[in-house]
């Protein structure tokens, strides 16, 4: 049963050039997956968001729901696939 906890369940992909670093996805994420780049910037000079703790992602899409620029694509392994 415990091994399920280590299984990957979800993943996010962030369009870094479209991101404006507003931080709303970081606040919305229930699993502390996302963070803003502390130093790097995109070609518009924004500190874009990235998946800092990617393995904790559950694919809930809360980040994508609040993203004002639609930069986030979310993937989730369907529950059946996780159980197997």
């Amino acid at each position, binding site marked *: 049963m415990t091994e399920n906890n280590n*299984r*990957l369940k*979800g*993943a996010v*992909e962030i*369009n870094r050039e*479209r991101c*404006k*670093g*507003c*931080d*709303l996805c970081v*606040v*919305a994420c229930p699993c502390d997956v996302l963070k803003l780049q502390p130093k790097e910037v995109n070609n*518009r000079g*924004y500190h874009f968001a990235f998946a800092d703790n*990617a*393995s904790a992602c559950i*694919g*809930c*899409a*809360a980040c*994508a*729901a*609040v*993203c*004002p*620029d*639609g*930069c*986030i*694509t*979310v*993937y*989730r*392994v*369907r529950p059946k696939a996780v159980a197997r």
Partner: protein
Amino acid sequence: MTIDEIKSPENLVYAKPRLLNDRHMHYCPGCSHGVVHRIVAEVLEEMGQDNNTIAVAPVGCAVFAYNYIDVDWIEASHGRAPAVATAAKRLNPDRLVFTYQGDGDLAAIGTAETIHAANRGENITIIFINNAIYGMTGGQMAPTTLEGMKTSTTPYGRQPELNGYPLVITPLLAQLPGTCYVTRQAVHTPAAVAKAKKAIRRAFQSSLDKRGTSIVEIVSTCSSGWKQTPEKANQWMVENMFPAYPPGDLKNFKD
């Protein structure tokens, strides 16, 4: 299973709607306009109305909405979006016609057009973005600005004896017999976004069903105009905007 393996089409949960194109939006970071644009595009896509929609863009920050959502748009002069939408809907009764307006457009210069379009019961949807400020021109006081709220033209806060009271326009519209669905939503949390999306869908459906005018007010933030970070602006909105503009349905119809 690695993260790259999860990122395959069969596991896709959410992606940017096709109708929201790849053009970089001019809105400030964290602006509610972006979220509302996205959910409007999602709803239009889900309803299969991409080729059946005429949208009317306002004057204000959302003036460039026509650049971002790939449906047919008309740019109205300041405040006149409901009048333009009236013509579009009357000439094309089967089309889905909606306006997308801010509070400076809808509640200041366009008050007459808004109230009369709603009073005539035009079968259009009005999406009303209320951030209590003129965001585009530099954060001046709008009719919807809260009492005591600091803006660039009310540096000591809005004083009712000098500047009048905040204009709460959706309850006025809800009184009119021409309106069928009047609701107030917000887009600050994932749950609120889901509710707002549902409301927009219901509003679009009711205007397609020719039930009358439907109004969806979205209480929004203007982090630049309020001089706050997007996160703080959301908190400020919950603490200060919600008491004056509480979310919920003001008028609804039975299915």
